[in-house]
Protein backbone atom coordinates (compact mmCIF):
# COMPACT_ATOMS: atom_id res chain seq x y z
CA UNK A 1 0.00 0.00 0.00
CA UNK A 2 0.98 3.60 -0.52
CA UNK A 3 0.24 6.61 1.63
CA UNK A 4 1.14 10.23 0.95
CA UNK A 5 0.51 13.12 3.29
CA UNK A 6 0.90 16.91 3.00
CA UNK A 7 2.98 16.74 -0.15
CA UNK A 8 4.06 20.01 -1.70
CA UNK A 9 6.50 20.85 -4.42
CA UNK A 10 7.72 23.88 -6.29
CA UNK A 11 9.43 24.10 -9.66
CA UNK A 12 12.57 26.20 -9.77
CA UNK A 13 11.31 29.75 -10.02
CA UNK A 14 7.69 28.61 -10.02
CA UNK A 15 4.83 28.61 -7.56
CA UNK A 16 4.47 25.96 -4.93
CA UNK A 17 1.84 23.25 -5.40
CA UNK A 18 0.22 21.40 -2.52
CA UNK A 19 -1.40 18.03 -3.05
CA UNK A 20 -4.24 16.29 -1.24
CA UNK A 21 -3.38 13.32 0.93
CA UNK A 22 -3.48 10.00 -0.86
CA UNK A 23 -3.93 6.44 0.29
CA UNK A 24 -4.29 3.29 -1.75
CA UNK A 25 -4.20 -0.21 -0.25
CA UNK A 26 -3.01 -3.43 -1.81
CA UNK A 27 -5.48 -4.55 -4.47
CA UNK A 28 -7.24 -1.15 -4.39
CA UNK A 29 -7.64 1.24 -7.29
CA UNK A 30 -7.42 5.02 -7.27
CA UNK A 31 -8.00 7.52 -10.04
CA UNK A 32 -6.36 10.91 -9.82
CA UNK A 33 -8.13 13.23 -12.25
CA UNK A 34 -6.90 16.65 -13.25
CA UNK A 35 -6.64 19.00 -16.16
CA UNK A 36 -3.22 19.79 -17.54
CA UNK A 37 -1.36 22.21 -15.32
CA UNK A 38 -2.72 20.75 -12.11
CA UNK A 39 0.55 18.96 -11.37
CA UNK A 40 -0.68 15.41 -12.03
CA UNK A 41 2.60 14.16 -13.44
CA UNK A 42 4.50 15.87 -10.68
CA UNK A 43 2.38 14.12 -8.08
CA UNK A 44 3.03 10.79 -9.76
CA UNK A 45 6.76 11.48 -9.76
CA UNK A 46 6.66 12.42 -6.09
CA UNK A 47 4.83 9.18 -5.32
CA UNK A 48 7.45 7.21 -7.27
CA UNK A 49 10.32 9.03 -5.59
CA UNK A 50 11.47 10.49 -8.89
CA UNK A 51 11.32 13.96 -7.36
CA UNK A 52 11.92 15.20 -3.84
CA UNK A 53 8.92 16.91 -2.19
CA UNK A 54 9.41 20.21 -0.34
CA UNK A 55 7.19 19.01 2.46
CA UNK A 56 5.27 15.90 3.32
CA UNK A 57 6.09 12.23 3.09
CA UNK A 58 5.41 9.13 1.02
CA UNK A 59 5.12 5.79 2.75
CA UNK A 60 5.35 2.67 0.63
CA UNK A 61 4.67 -0.74 2.11
CA UNK A 62 5.52 0.60 5.54
CA UNK A 63 8.74 2.34 4.51
CA UNK A 64 9.13 6.11 4.39
CA UNK A 65 10.57 6.92 0.99
CA UNK A 66 12.78 9.70 2.32
CA UNK A 67 14.28 7.28 4.85
CA UNK A 68 15.63 5.07 2.10
CA UNK A 69 19.26 6.04 1.52
CA UNK A 70 19.78 7.81 -1.78
CA UNK A 71 21.98 5.05 -3.21
CA UNK A 72 19.26 2.47 -2.50
CA UNK A 73 16.29 4.57 -3.63
CA UNK A 74 16.44 3.65 -7.32
CA UNK A 75 16.49 -0.03 -6.56
CA UNK A 76 13.76 0.37 -3.96
CA UNK A 77 11.61 1.97 -6.65
CA UNK A 78 12.47 -0.78 -9.11
CA UNK A 79 11.38 -3.43 -6.62
CA UNK A 80 8.19 -1.85 -5.27
CA UNK A 81 6.80 0.40 -7.98
CA UNK A 82 5.77 -0.33 -11.54
CA UNK A 83 5.45 2.72 -13.77
CA UNK A 84 3.51 3.08 -17.01
CA UNK A 85 3.77 6.18 -19.18
CA UNK A 86 1.51 7.71 -21.76
CA UNK A 87 4.04 7.00 -24.51
CA UNK A 88 5.79 3.73 -23.90
CA UNK A 89 9.58 3.88 -24.14
CA UNK A 90 12.05 1.03 -24.36
CA UNK A 91 15.74 0.42 -24.72
CA UNK A 92 15.92 0.33 -28.49
CA UNK A 93 18.96 -1.94 -28.46
CA UNK A 94 17.05 -4.74 -26.72
CA UNK A 95 14.21 -6.95 -27.89
CA UNK A 96 10.93 -7.36 -26.02
CA UNK A 97 12.10 -10.22 -23.82
CA UNK A 98 15.38 -8.47 -23.00
CA UNK A 99 13.57 -5.22 -22.17
CA UNK A 100 11.38 -6.98 -19.63
CA UNK A 101 14.30 -8.99 -18.25
CA UNK A 102 16.10 -5.66 -17.82
CA UNK A 103 13.40 -4.56 -15.38
CA UNK A 104 14.09 -7.67 -13.27
CA UNK A 105 17.85 -7.15 -13.44
CA UNK A 106 17.79 -3.47 -12.55
CA UNK A 107 15.50 -4.17 -9.61
CA UNK A 108 18.21 -6.53 -8.35
CA UNK A 109 16.26 -9.70 -9.05
CA UNK A 110 17.11 -12.83 -10.95
CA UNK A 111 15.83 -13.03 -14.51
CA UNK A 112 12.80 -15.32 -14.48
CA UNK A 113 12.16 -16.23 -18.12
CA UNK A 114 9.20 -18.46 -17.20
CA UNK A 115 7.43 -15.53 -15.57
CA UNK A 116 8.26 -13.25 -18.51
CA UNK A 117 6.83 -15.74 -20.95
CA UNK A 118 3.75 -16.41 -18.84
CA UNK A 119 3.04 -12.69 -18.45
CA UNK A 120 3.54 -11.98 -22.16
CA UNK A 121 1.29 -14.92 -22.95
CA UNK A 122 -1.41 -13.51 -20.72
CA UNK A 123 -1.14 -10.18 -22.54
CA UNK A 124 -1.23 -11.91 -25.94
CA UNK A 125 2.35 -10.92 -26.74
CA UNK A 126 4.22 -14.19 -26.62
CA UNK A 127 4.79 -14.14 -30.39
CA UNK A 128 6.55 -10.76 -30.04
CA UNK A 129 9.15 -12.15 -27.63
CA UNK A 130 12.11 -11.65 -29.98
CA UNK A 131 10.78 -8.60 -31.79
CA UNK A 132 12.24 -5.16 -31.22
CA UNK A 133 9.80 -2.77 -29.58
CA UNK A 134 10.05 -0.24 -32.43
CA UNK A 135 8.70 -2.91 -34.77
CA UNK A 136 5.64 -3.45 -32.60
CA UNK A 137 2.36 -1.57 -33.02
CA UNK A 138 1.42 1.26 -30.65
CA UNK A 139 -1.07 -0.99 -28.85
CA UNK A 140 1.48 -3.78 -28.51
CA UNK A 141 4.02 -1.35 -27.14
CA UNK A 142 1.53 -0.17 -24.52
CA UNK A 143 0.91 -3.77 -23.45
CA UNK A 144 4.65 -4.53 -23.37
CA UNK A 145 5.15 -1.56 -21.06
CA UNK A 146 2.37 -2.92 -18.82
CA UNK A 147 4.11 -6.30 -18.76
CA UNK A 148 7.37 -4.58 -17.85
CA UNK A 149 5.73 -2.61 -15.03
CA UNK A 150 4.19 -5.78 -13.61
CA UNK A 151 7.12 -8.15 -13.99
CA UNK A 152 8.43 -7.62 -10.44
CA UNK A 153 4.94 -7.93 -8.86
CA UNK A 154 5.12 -4.35 -7.62
CA UNK A 155 3.26 -3.21 -4.53
CA UNK A 156 2.18 -0.11 -6.40
CA UNK A 157 1.34 0.26 -10.07
CA UNK A 158 1.47 3.90 -11.18
CA UNK A 159 0.08 4.77 -14.60
CA UNK A 160 0.51 8.22 -16.11
CA UNK A 161 -2.14 8.98 -18.76
CA UNK A 162 -2.18 5.37 -19.96
CA UNK A 163 -5.30 5.84 -22.10
CA UNK A 164 -5.28 9.46 -23.29
CA UNK A 165 -3.83 8.70 -26.68
CA UNK A 166 -6.08 5.73 -27.36
CA UNK A 167 -9.48 5.45 -29.04
CA UNK A 168 -12.47 4.31 -27.01
CA UNK A 169 -12.07 0.62 -27.71
CA UNK A 170 -8.37 0.50 -26.89
CA UNK A 171 -8.99 2.74 -23.92
CA UNK A 172 -11.40 0.19 -22.46
CA UNK A 173 -9.02 -2.66 -23.26
CA UNK A 174 -6.00 -1.09 -21.63
CA UNK A 175 -7.95 -0.06 -18.55
CA UNK A 176 -9.37 -3.55 -18.20
CA UNK A 177 -5.91 -5.03 -18.57
CA UNK A 178 -4.47 -2.73 -15.93
CA UNK A 179 -7.22 -3.52 -13.46
CA UNK A 180 -7.03 -7.23 -14.10
CA UNK A 181 -3.25 -7.46 -13.86
CA UNK A 182 -3.02 -5.18 -10.82
CA UNK A 183 -5.59 -7.38 -9.08
CA UNK A 184 -3.59 -10.42 -10.12
CA UNK A 185 -0.46 -9.11 -8.41
CA UNK A 186 -2.41 -7.54 -5.56
CA UNK A 187 -0.86 -4.21 -6.49
CA UNK A 188 -2.31 -0.87 -5.50
CA UNK A 189 -3.27 0.72 -8.83
CA UNK A 190 -3.09 4.49 -9.19
CA UNK A 191 -4.00 6.06 -12.51
CA UNK A 192 -3.24 9.71 -13.10
CA UNK A 193 -5.11 11.17 -16.04
CA UNK A 194 -7.27 13.91 -17.51
CA UNK A 195 -9.17 11.26 -19.47
CA UNK A 196 -12.79 11.60 -18.28
CA UNK A 197 -13.80 8.37 -20.04
CA UNK A 198 -12.46 6.16 -17.28
CA UNK A 199 -13.97 8.17 -14.44
CA UNK A 200 -16.78 5.73 -13.73
CA UNK A 201 -14.69 2.61 -14.08
CA UNK A 202 -12.67 3.13 -10.91
CA UNK A 203 -14.12 3.14 -7.40
CA UNK A 204 -12.07 5.95 -5.84
CA UNK A 205 -11.37 9.27 -7.50
CA UNK A 206 -9.40 12.29 -6.36
CA UNK A 207 -9.72 15.40 -8.47
CA UNK A 208 -6.85 17.84 -8.57
CA UNK A 209 -7.86 21.48 -8.81
CA UNK A 210 -5.98 24.10 -10.75
CA UNK A 211 -4.52 25.78 -7.77
CA UNK A 212 -4.67 28.98 -6.15
Amino acid at each position, binding site marked *: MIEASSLSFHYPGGASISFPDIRCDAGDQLLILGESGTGK*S*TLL*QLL*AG*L*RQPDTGSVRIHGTMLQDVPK*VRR*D*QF*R*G*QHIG*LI*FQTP*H*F*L*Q*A*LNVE*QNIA*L*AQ*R*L*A*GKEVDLLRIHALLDKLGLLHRLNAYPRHCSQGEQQRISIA*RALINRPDILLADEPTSALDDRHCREVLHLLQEQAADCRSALIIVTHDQRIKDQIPHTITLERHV
Partner: protein
Amino acid sequence: MYSLWLSWKHLVHKPSQLVLNLVLLALSTGLIAGVLLFDQMITDRLDRNLAGIDLVIGAKGSPLQLILSGMYHLDTPTGNISLESVRPFMRPGHPLIQRAVPLSLGDSYQGYRIVGTDTAFLAMYGLTIGQGQLADAPMDVLAGANVAKALGLVVGQTFQSVHGLDDNPDLTHEDSHPFRVVGILEPSGTVADQLLLTPLESVWMVHDHGHAEEVTGGLPEQDQRQITTLLIQYRVRNHLTLNLPRNINENTELMAASPAMEMNRLYALMGAGTDLLGILAWIILGVSGLSIFVSLYSSLQARRYELALMRVMGSSPGGLFRLIIQEGFLLALAGGMLGIILAHVGVWLSGQFLEDAWHYSFDTWVFLPAEGWLFLAVLAFGVLAALIPAWQARKVDIGETLVD
Protein backbone atom coordinates in the same frame (compact mmCIF):
# COMPACT_ATOMS: atom_id res chain seq x y z
CA MET B 1 28.76 -9.33 -16.87
CA TYR B 2 25.16 -8.28 -17.47
CA SER B 3 26.04 -4.62 -17.52
CA LEU B 4 28.95 -5.29 -19.90
CA TRP B 5 26.53 -7.14 -22.13
CA LEU B 6 24.16 -4.19 -21.95
CA SER B 7 26.95 -1.81 -22.98
CA TRP B 8 27.85 -4.10 -25.83
CA LYS B 9 24.21 -4.26 -26.99
CA HIS B 10 24.15 -0.48 -27.18
CA LEU B 11 27.34 -0.41 -29.22
CA VAL B 12 26.15 -2.93 -31.80
CA HIS B 13 22.82 -1.16 -31.96
CA LYS B 14 24.61 1.62 -33.87
CA PRO B 15 26.66 -0.43 -36.36
CA SER B 16 27.89 2.44 -38.51
CA GLN B 17 29.19 4.34 -35.50
CA LEU B 18 30.69 1.15 -34.13
CA VAL B 19 32.50 0.41 -37.38
CA LEU B 20 33.83 3.95 -37.70
CA ASN B 21 35.19 3.91 -34.16
CA LEU B 22 36.67 0.44 -34.51
CA VAL B 23 38.35 1.31 -37.81
CA LEU B 24 39.90 4.46 -36.35
CA LEU B 25 41.08 2.65 -33.23
CA ALA B 26 42.39 -0.38 -35.11
CA LEU B 27 44.17 1.84 -37.61
CA SER B 28 45.95 3.95 -35.01
CA THR B 29 46.79 1.05 -32.70
CA GLY B 30 47.86 -1.04 -35.67
CA LEU B 31 50.12 1.69 -37.02
CA ILE B 32 51.84 2.25 -33.68
CA ALA B 33 52.26 -1.46 -33.02
CA GLY B 34 53.35 -1.99 -36.62
CA VAL B 35 56.08 0.62 -36.37
CA LEU B 36 57.28 -0.93 -33.10
CA LEU B 37 57.28 -4.42 -34.56
CA PHE B 38 58.85 -3.48 -37.87
CA ASP B 39 61.62 -1.59 -36.14
CA GLN B 40 62.22 -4.54 -33.85
CA MET B 41 62.13 -7.03 -36.72
CA ILE B 42 64.72 -5.17 -38.78
CA THR B 43 67.12 -4.27 -36.00
CA ASP B 44 66.90 -7.72 -34.47
CA ARG B 45 67.66 -9.33 -37.79
CA LEU B 46 70.51 -6.95 -38.59
CA ASP B 47 72.00 -7.18 -35.09
CA ARG B 48 72.14 -10.94 -35.25
CA ASN B 49 74.37 -10.65 -38.29
CA LEU B 50 76.90 -8.41 -36.58
CA ALA B 51 78.55 -11.64 -35.40
CA GLY B 52 81.19 -9.72 -33.51
CA ILE B 53 82.59 -8.19 -36.68
CA ASP B 54 84.56 -5.06 -35.82
CA LEU B 55 85.75 -3.93 -39.21
CA VAL B 56 84.96 -4.56 -42.86
CA ILE B 57 87.62 -3.90 -45.48
CA GLY B 58 86.89 -3.59 -49.18
CA ALA B 59 87.32 -1.40 -52.25
CA LYS B 60 86.73 2.32 -51.84
CA GLY B 61 83.16 3.45 -52.22
CA SER B 62 80.26 3.91 -49.87
CA PRO B 63 81.01 2.55 -46.39
CA LEU B 64 77.34 1.63 -45.86
CA GLN B 65 77.30 -0.22 -49.17
CA LEU B 66 80.41 -2.12 -48.12
CA ILE B 67 78.76 -3.16 -44.86
CA LEU B 68 75.48 -4.09 -46.53
CA SER B 69 77.16 -6.16 -49.23
CA GLY B 70 79.91 -7.69 -47.11
CA MET B 71 77.99 -8.45 -43.92
CA TYR B 72 74.34 -8.51 -44.82
CA HIS B 73 74.64 -9.62 -48.44
CA LEU B 74 72.03 -7.09 -49.47
CA ASP B 75 73.76 -4.54 -51.68
CA THR B 76 76.22 -4.99 -54.53
CA PRO B 77 79.91 -4.93 -53.56
CA THR B 78 81.95 -1.75 -53.94
CA GLY B 79 84.48 -3.57 -56.09
CA ASN B 80 87.33 -6.00 -55.69
CA ILE B 81 90.65 -5.71 -53.90
CA SER B 82 93.80 -7.71 -54.45
CA LEU B 83 94.49 -10.51 -52.05
CA GLU B 84 98.02 -9.16 -51.85
CA SER B 85 96.90 -5.82 -50.40
CA VAL B 86 95.06 -7.39 -47.45
CA ARG B 87 97.50 -10.20 -46.78
CA PRO B 88 99.10 -8.30 -43.85
CA PHE B 89 95.76 -8.32 -42.01
CA MET B 90 95.48 -12.06 -42.46
CA ARG B 91 98.84 -12.81 -40.90
CA PRO B 92 98.17 -15.32 -38.07
CA GLY B 93 100.09 -13.56 -35.28
CA HIS B 94 98.73 -10.07 -35.91
CA PRO B 95 98.82 -8.11 -32.64
CA LEU B 96 95.45 -6.43 -33.16
CA ILE B 97 93.47 -8.83 -35.29
CA GLN B 98 92.18 -12.10 -34.00
CA ARG B 99 90.38 -13.31 -37.08
CA ALA B 100 90.21 -12.10 -40.67
CA VAL B 101 87.77 -13.74 -43.04
CA PRO B 102 88.12 -13.10 -46.79
CA LEU B 103 85.00 -13.08 -48.92
CA SER B 104 84.78 -13.28 -52.67
CA LEU B 105 81.41 -12.39 -54.12
CA GLY B 106 80.06 -12.13 -57.59
CA ASP B 107 78.16 -15.28 -58.44
CA SER B 108 74.81 -16.60 -57.45
CA TYR B 109 72.49 -19.51 -58.00
CA GLN B 110 68.77 -18.88 -58.39
CA GLY B 111 69.14 -15.57 -56.60
CA TYR B 112 71.12 -16.96 -53.66
CA ARG B 113 74.65 -15.63 -53.32
CA ILE B 114 77.67 -17.85 -53.64
CA VAL B 115 80.32 -16.69 -51.20
CA GLY B 116 83.91 -17.73 -51.63
CA THR B 117 85.53 -17.80 -48.20
CA ASP B 118 87.51 -20.05 -45.85
CA THR B 119 86.69 -22.09 -42.74
CA ALA B 120 87.18 -19.04 -40.49
CA PHE B 121 83.77 -17.90 -41.76
CA LEU B 122 82.14 -20.87 -40.01
CA ALA B 123 83.90 -20.02 -36.76
CA MET B 124 82.96 -16.35 -37.00
CA TYR B 125 79.22 -17.04 -37.34
CA GLY B 126 79.31 -20.12 -35.10
CA LEU B 127 78.03 -22.39 -37.86
CA THR B 128 77.78 -26.14 -37.64
CA ILE B 129 77.27 -28.67 -40.37
CA GLY B 130 73.96 -30.49 -40.34
CA GLN B 131 74.53 -32.94 -43.17
CA GLY B 132 77.55 -33.87 -45.24
CA GLN B 133 80.94 -32.37 -44.71
CA LEU B 134 83.10 -29.26 -44.98
CA ALA B 135 83.66 -27.78 -48.42
CA ASP B 136 87.41 -28.48 -48.68
CA ALA B 137 88.01 -28.80 -52.39
CA PRO B 138 87.37 -26.13 -55.03
CA MET B 139 83.80 -26.19 -56.38
CA ASP B 140 82.51 -27.82 -53.20
CA VAL B 141 79.55 -25.99 -51.72
CA LEU B 142 78.23 -25.83 -48.18
CA ALA B 143 74.60 -24.69 -48.47
CA GLY B 144 72.87 -22.51 -45.87
CA ALA B 145 69.81 -24.09 -44.25
CA ASN B 146 67.27 -21.77 -45.89
CA VAL B 147 68.81 -22.02 -49.35
CA ALA B 148 68.84 -25.80 -49.14
CA LYS B 149 65.21 -25.81 -48.07
CA ALA B 150 64.06 -23.24 -50.62
CA LEU B 151 65.88 -24.80 -53.57
CA GLY B 152 65.57 -28.38 -52.39
CA LEU B 153 69.33 -28.90 -52.47
CA VAL B 154 70.69 -32.24 -51.32
CA VAL B 155 74.22 -33.42 -50.73
CA GLY B 156 75.80 -34.53 -53.97
CA GLN B 157 73.73 -32.26 -56.20
CA THR B 158 75.55 -30.13 -58.79
CA PHE B 159 74.64 -26.78 -60.36
CA GLN B 160 76.03 -24.07 -62.62
CA SER B 161 76.41 -20.66 -61.06
CA VAL B 162 75.17 -17.43 -62.60
CA HIS B 163 77.38 -14.41 -62.99
CA GLY B 164 76.16 -11.53 -60.92
CA LEU B 165 73.91 -11.42 -57.92
CA ASP B 166 70.60 -11.40 -59.75
CA ASP B 167 68.85 -14.50 -60.95
CA ASN B 168 69.61 -14.04 -64.64
CA PRO B 169 69.87 -17.36 -66.56
CA ASP B 170 71.49 -15.60 -69.56
CA LEU B 171 74.61 -15.11 -67.49
CA THR B 172 75.07 -18.75 -66.49
CA HIS B 173 78.70 -19.88 -66.48
CA GLU B 174 77.98 -22.72 -68.84
CA ASP B 175 81.51 -23.62 -69.76
CA SER B 176 83.00 -23.73 -66.28
CA HIS B 177 83.02 -26.50 -63.72
CA PRO B 178 79.75 -27.08 -61.95
CA PHE B 179 79.45 -26.55 -58.19
CA ARG B 180 78.74 -29.59 -56.06
CA VAL B 181 76.85 -29.52 -52.76
CA VAL B 182 78.89 -31.43 -50.17
CA GLY B 183 77.19 -30.28 -47.00
CA ILE B 184 74.23 -28.43 -45.55
CA LEU B 185 74.50 -26.10 -42.54
CA GLU B 186 72.34 -26.18 -39.45
CA PRO B 187 69.97 -23.18 -39.26
CA SER B 188 71.76 -20.39 -37.37
CA GLY B 189 69.38 -17.45 -37.64
CA THR B 190 72.18 -15.48 -39.28
CA VAL B 191 72.76 -14.39 -42.84
CA ALA B 192 74.66 -17.64 -43.44
CA ASP B 193 71.29 -19.40 -43.73
CA GLN B 194 70.78 -17.66 -47.06
CA LEU B 195 74.24 -18.26 -48.51
CA LEU B 196 76.07 -20.89 -50.55
CA LEU B 197 79.60 -21.14 -49.11
CA THR B 198 82.51 -22.36 -51.15
CA PRO B 199 86.30 -22.15 -50.93
CA LEU B 200 87.79 -18.94 -52.38
CA GLU B 201 89.47 -20.95 -55.13
CA SER B 202 86.09 -21.87 -56.63
CA VAL B 203 85.26 -18.28 -57.45
CA TRP B 204 88.68 -17.72 -58.95
CA MET B 205 88.28 -20.85 -61.05
CA VAL B 206 84.90 -19.85 -62.39
CA HIS B 207 86.16 -16.43 -63.34
CA ASP B 208 89.41 -17.60 -64.84
CA HIS B 209 87.69 -18.15 -68.17
CA GLY B 210 87.94 -21.88 -68.15
CA HIS B 211 91.62 -22.12 -67.31
CA ALA B 212 90.94 -23.18 -63.80
CA GLU B 213 93.50 -25.94 -63.74
CA GLU B 214 96.30 -23.42 -63.84
CA VAL B 215 95.17 -21.83 -60.59
CA THR B 216 94.87 -25.05 -58.66
CA GLY B 217 98.13 -26.17 -60.20
CA GLY B 218 100.08 -23.63 -58.20
CA LEU B 219 100.31 -19.92 -57.47
CA PRO B 220 101.20 -17.77 -60.43
CA GLU B 221 104.36 -15.75 -60.08
CA GLN B 222 102.63 -12.50 -59.43
CA ASP B 223 99.59 -13.05 -57.27
CA GLN B 224 96.77 -11.27 -59.06
CA ARG B 225 94.00 -13.02 -57.26
CA GLN B 226 91.26 -10.80 -55.89
CA ILE B 227 88.77 -10.91 -53.12
CA THR B 228 85.79 -8.65 -52.42
CA THR B 229 85.74 -8.10 -48.71
CA LEU B 230 87.69 -8.88 -45.59
CA LEU B 231 85.77 -9.25 -42.31
CA ILE B 232 87.83 -8.55 -39.23
CA GLN B 233 87.46 -9.35 -35.53
CA TYR B 234 89.85 -7.52 -33.21
CA ARG B 235 91.96 -9.26 -30.65
CA VAL B 236 92.01 -6.25 -28.38
CA ARG B 237 90.40 -2.84 -28.35
CA ASN B 238 92.74 0.07 -27.81
CA HIS B 239 93.82 3.33 -29.40
CA LEU B 240 95.51 1.35 -32.16
CA THR B 241 92.32 -0.41 -33.20
CA LEU B 242 90.50 2.89 -32.85
CA ASN B 243 92.86 4.47 -35.38
CA LEU B 244 93.09 1.45 -37.66
CA PRO B 245 90.14 2.34 -39.94
CA ARG B 246 91.42 5.89 -40.44
CA ASN B 247 94.92 4.63 -41.17
CA ILE B 248 93.59 2.24 -43.78
CA ASN B 249 91.35 4.81 -45.37
CA GLU B 250 94.04 7.49 -45.54
CA ASN B 251 97.08 5.46 -46.43
CA THR B 252 95.89 2.65 -48.69
CA GLU B 253 93.69 2.01 -51.67
CA LEU B 254 91.41 0.09 -49.34
CA MET B 255 88.38 1.25 -47.44
CA ALA B 256 87.64 0.20 -43.87
CA ALA B 257 84.20 0.62 -42.35
CA SER B 258 82.97 -0.03 -38.83
CA PRO B 259 79.67 -1.98 -38.85
CA ALA B 260 78.54 -0.52 -35.53
CA MET B 261 78.98 3.05 -36.75
CA GLU B 262 77.44 2.48 -40.16
CA MET B 263 74.46 0.60 -38.77
CA ASN B 264 73.86 3.31 -36.20
CA ARG B 265 73.77 5.82 -39.03
CA LEU B 266 71.32 3.62 -40.90
CA TYR B 267 69.10 3.25 -37.82
CA ALA B 268 69.18 6.99 -37.33
CA LEU B 269 67.97 7.48 -40.90
CA MET B 270 65.31 4.80 -40.50
CA GLY B 271 64.43 6.18 -37.09
CA ALA B 272 63.45 9.56 -38.51
CA GLY B 273 60.93 7.84 -40.75
CA THR B 274 59.51 5.57 -38.08
CA ASP B 275 59.37 8.46 -35.60
CA LEU B 276 57.26 10.45 -38.03
CA LEU B 277 54.98 7.48 -38.66
CA GLY B 278 54.70 6.98 -34.89
CA ILE B 279 53.68 10.60 -34.33
CA LEU B 280 51.12 10.30 -37.10
CA ALA B 281 49.73 7.17 -35.48
CA TRP B 282 49.37 8.86 -32.08
CA ILE B 283 47.52 11.71 -33.77
CA ILE B 284 45.11 9.23 -35.32
CA LEU B 285 44.70 7.64 -31.89
CA GLY B 286 43.79 11.09 -30.59
CA VAL B 287 41.24 11.45 -33.38
CA SER B 288 39.73 8.08 -32.57
CA GLY B 289 39.47 9.09 -28.92
CA LEU B 290 37.66 12.22 -30.07
CA SER B 291 35.41 10.12 -32.28
CA ILE B 292 34.46 7.88 -29.35
CA PHE B 293 33.72 10.96 -27.30
CA VAL B 294 31.59 12.55 -30.01
CA SER B 295 29.58 9.43 -30.75
CA LEU B 296 28.91 8.71 -27.07
CA TYR B 297 28.12 12.34 -26.35
CA SER B 298 25.80 12.84 -29.32
CA SER B 299 23.93 9.58 -28.74
CA LEU B 300 23.40 10.69 -25.15
CA GLN B 301 20.74 13.19 -26.20
CA ALA B 302 18.82 10.47 -28.03
CA ARG B 303 19.25 8.13 -25.10
CA ARG B 304 18.22 10.52 -22.33
CA TYR B 305 14.82 8.92 -22.10
CA GLU B 306 16.28 5.42 -22.04
CA LEU B 307 18.67 6.41 -19.30
CA ALA B 308 15.86 7.95 -17.24
CA LEU B 309 13.86 4.79 -17.86
CA MET B 310 16.68 2.69 -16.47
CA ARG B 311 16.70 4.86 -13.36
CA VAL B 312 12.94 4.32 -13.01
CA MET B 313 13.49 0.58 -13.19
CA GLY B 314 16.10 0.64 -10.46
CA SER B 315 19.45 1.60 -11.92
CA SER B 316 21.48 4.01 -9.82
CA PRO B 317 23.24 7.09 -11.26
CA GLY B 318 26.50 5.20 -10.77
CA GLY B 319 25.09 2.34 -12.79
CA LEU B 320 24.46 4.66 -15.75
CA PHE B 321 27.95 6.14 -15.38
CA ARG B 322 29.41 2.66 -15.53
CA LEU B 323 27.30 1.75 -18.54
CA ILE B 324 28.77 4.58 -20.63
CA ILE B 325 32.35 4.10 -19.36
CA GLN B 326 32.07 0.44 -20.33
CA GLU B 327 31.02 1.41 -23.82
CA GLY B 328 34.23 3.42 -24.23
CA PHE B 329 36.21 0.59 -22.67
CA LEU B 330 34.71 -2.10 -24.88
CA LEU B 331 35.30 -0.01 -27.99
CA ALA B 332 38.93 0.46 -27.02
CA LEU B 333 39.27 -3.21 -26.14
CA ALA B 334 37.92 -4.42 -29.47
CA GLY B 335 39.64 -1.70 -31.50
CA GLY B 336 42.95 -2.21 -29.72
CA MET B 337 42.87 -5.97 -30.24
CA LEU B 338 41.98 -5.53 -33.90
CA GLY B 339 44.86 -3.08 -34.22
CA ILE B 340 47.41 -5.43 -32.67
CA ILE B 341 46.24 -8.26 -34.91
CA LEU B 342 46.37 -5.91 -37.88
CA ALA B 343 49.94 -4.92 -37.01
CA HIS B 344 51.10 -8.52 -36.78
CA VAL B 345 49.44 -9.49 -40.03
CA GLY B 346 50.92 -6.41 -41.69
CA VAL B 347 54.40 -7.10 -40.37
CA TRP B 348 54.05 -10.74 -41.34
CA LEU B 349 53.12 -9.71 -44.89
CA SER B 350 56.01 -7.26 -45.14
CA GLY B 351 58.25 -9.97 -43.68
CA GLN B 352 57.17 -12.29 -46.47
CA PHE B 353 57.88 -9.56 -48.97
CA LEU B 354 61.33 -8.84 -47.54
CA GLU B 355 62.06 -12.53 -47.44
CA ASP B 356 61.42 -12.71 -51.16
CA ALA B 357 63.39 -9.59 -51.88
CA TRP B 358 66.33 -10.12 -49.52
CA HIS B 359 66.19 -13.87 -48.97
CA TYR B 360 65.99 -13.10 -45.28
CA SER B 361 63.61 -14.73 -42.86
CA PHE B 362 61.98 -12.74 -40.06
CA ASP B 363 60.33 -13.59 -36.77
CA THR B 364 57.01 -11.80 -37.11
CA TRP B 365 55.02 -13.46 -34.34
CA VAL B 366 56.95 -12.11 -31.39
CA PHE B 367 54.97 -10.00 -28.94
CA LEU B 368 56.78 -7.02 -27.50
CA PRO B 369 56.27 -5.64 -24.00
CA ALA B 370 55.73 -2.28 -25.68
CA GLU B 371 52.62 -3.70 -27.32
CA GLY B 372 51.21 -4.45 -23.88
CA TRP B 373 51.79 -0.85 -22.81
CA LEU B 374 50.28 0.40 -26.06
CA PHE B 375 47.20 -1.74 -25.42
CA LEU B 376 46.83 -0.35 -21.90
CA ALA B 377 47.21 3.18 -23.28
CA VAL B 378 44.45 2.53 -25.82
CA LEU B 379 42.15 1.20 -23.07
CA ALA B 380 42.86 4.29 -21.00
CA PHE B 381 42.02 6.43 -24.05
CA GLY B 382 38.66 4.71 -24.43
CA VAL B 383 37.75 5.19 -20.78
CA LEU B 384 38.96 8.81 -20.85
CA ALA B 385 36.87 9.60 -23.94
CA ALA B 386 33.79 8.17 -22.21
CA LEU B 387 34.33 10.13 -19.00
CA ILE B 388 32.38 13.29 -19.84
CA PRO B 389 29.45 11.51 -21.55
CA ALA B 390 29.30 9.13 -18.59
CA TRP B 391 29.17 12.04 -16.18
CA GLN B 392 26.33 13.57 -18.21
CA ALA B 393 24.46 10.27 -18.07
CA ARG B 394 24.92 10.18 -14.33
CA LYS B 395 23.34 13.60 -13.98
CA VAL B 396 20.26 12.95 -16.16
CA ASP B 397 17.27 14.41 -14.31
CA ILE B 398 14.65 11.68 -14.47
CA GLY B 399 11.76 13.90 -13.47
CA GLU B 400 12.49 16.52 -16.13
CA THR B 401 13.22 13.95 -18.81
CA LEU B 402 10.13 11.84 -18.30
CA VAL B 403 7.83 14.89 -18.49
CA ASP B 404 8.95 15.55 -22.08
